[in-house]
């Protein structure tokens, strides 16, 4: 049973509402899901820092009545690394978009995944640069028409979850916006995971570019995402031939392994010095 919406609203800066998001945008949902996850985990909100870069989804920390660091374009994860490694007692959650996180910020993404600092990245993939008016992003599908790919996108998009797994992250998951219960649950797991967790949420951008463009109404759009994705648990049951034919994006928890974490390792080192002094 979910908590009352009033309780969730107490996490918000009421003076900032309504949000800047367009009608039908999924970013508000992600905010809603994240706050519910935090509420259910009973984390002290005073010890949570929300960090973001530049873009629509990066505006989320502004709506939460908590410590927030709205940084420069692409650099949210690097700033967050500073916050977390300087004060590991804080829970650090990053809100970012596909352009911010995987475009200009791609290097910080892969290095944070490799380094394994205990951060939770919630990346909202809307397949384009929405805030600047719908340009090509590194996740825009092949042939997608955006304002800077007027003849169709020629580039292959990133499968971001696969990329982050490749870079070594211990916890990686993906959900389309239409899986509220599962997403809340996954965000809880991501926050609780000691290590770098990456959660990609596929969100529609009705104003900029959407792969499902042409569909009317959010019911249809959300259904489109369900039709075009496949649960990882189901994929695992497929035969090799079936897998070869499968080109839908996998969703669910895609990676969950244990790995030594940076701030833990550092604390051990500091403790060694402290012990040797005594």
């Amino acid at each position, binding site marked *: 049973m979910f908590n009352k919406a009033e309780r969730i609203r107490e996490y918000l800066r009421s003076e900032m509402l309504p949000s*800047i998001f*367009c009608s039908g945008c999924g970013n508000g949902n992600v905010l809603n899901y994240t706050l519910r996850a935090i509420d259910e985990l009973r984390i002290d909100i005073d010890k949570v820092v929300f960090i973001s870069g530049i873009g629509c989804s990066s505006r989320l920390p502004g709506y939460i009545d908590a410590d927030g660091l709205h940084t420069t374009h692409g650099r949210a994860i690097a700033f967050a690394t500073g916050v977390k490694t300087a004060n590991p007692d804080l829970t650090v959650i990053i809100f970012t978009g596909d352009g911010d996180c995987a475009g200009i910020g791609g290097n910080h993404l892969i290095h944070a995944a490799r380094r394994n600092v205990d951060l939770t990245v919630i990346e909202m993939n809307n397949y384009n640069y929405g805030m600047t008016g719908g340009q090509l992003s590194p996740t825009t599908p092949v042939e997608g028409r955006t304002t800077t790919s007027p003849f169709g996108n020629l580039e292959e998009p990133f499968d971001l979850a696969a990329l982050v797994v490749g870079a070594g992250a211990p916890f990686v998951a993906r959900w389309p916006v239409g899986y509220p219960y599962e997403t809340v649950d996954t965000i809880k797991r991501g926050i609780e995971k000691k290590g770098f967790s990456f959660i990609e949420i596929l969100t529609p951008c009705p*104003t900029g570019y959407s792969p499902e463009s042409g569909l009317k109404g959010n019911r249809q759009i959300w259904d489109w995402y369900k039709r075009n994705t496949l649960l990882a648990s189901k994929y695992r049951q497929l035969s090799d031939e079936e897998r070869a034919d499968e080109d839908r994006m996998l969703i669910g928890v895609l990676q969950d392994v244990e790995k030594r974490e940076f701030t833990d390792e550092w604390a051990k080192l500091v403790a060694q010095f402290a012990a040797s002094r005594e």
Partner: protein
Amino acid sequence: MNIRFSGFGGQGIVLSGYIFGVAAVFDGKQALQTQSYGSESRGGGCRSDVIISEDEIFELAPPRLDVLVALSQAAYDAYLPALREDGTLILEDDLVDTGNGSGHRTFRIKATDIAHKKFGRKIMANMVMLGFICAIVEAVSREGLERAILDNVPKGTEEMNQQAFEEGYRIGKGEPG
């Protein structure tokens, strides 16, 4: 002639100003159009100014407005002081409440509702509005404006835009439907 279109992002404010400017250029006049908007693609405050003149234009923003088109309460409240006393006020009837009135020559139209109900597309509201303004304000020629609209709407929607413009124009002229 200084005209300001104002309202929310997504109401076609910038496009309206642009079309007016293009129409002025078609009419052989000088025109300068600027816009101002927040970070939001939709729903944030938005305005578009058009200065139309026979001579070279030095101003970047009109100091006083001859015409204020307000499509939201916030826009009306913010920009009313810039409207000349003898200026013309054009309002979206459903979204702006003027209280006891401002004392200006005022025209109202339910452009959003007409667009939604008559054309099934809220987005047509700005074409209805352009027709309405065209009927009231003599800034640019109707021919120039229609040409500018046809040049700047997506292929295949010309007819609907034309009809929406016509509808607004008819209402502006007080003609029966």
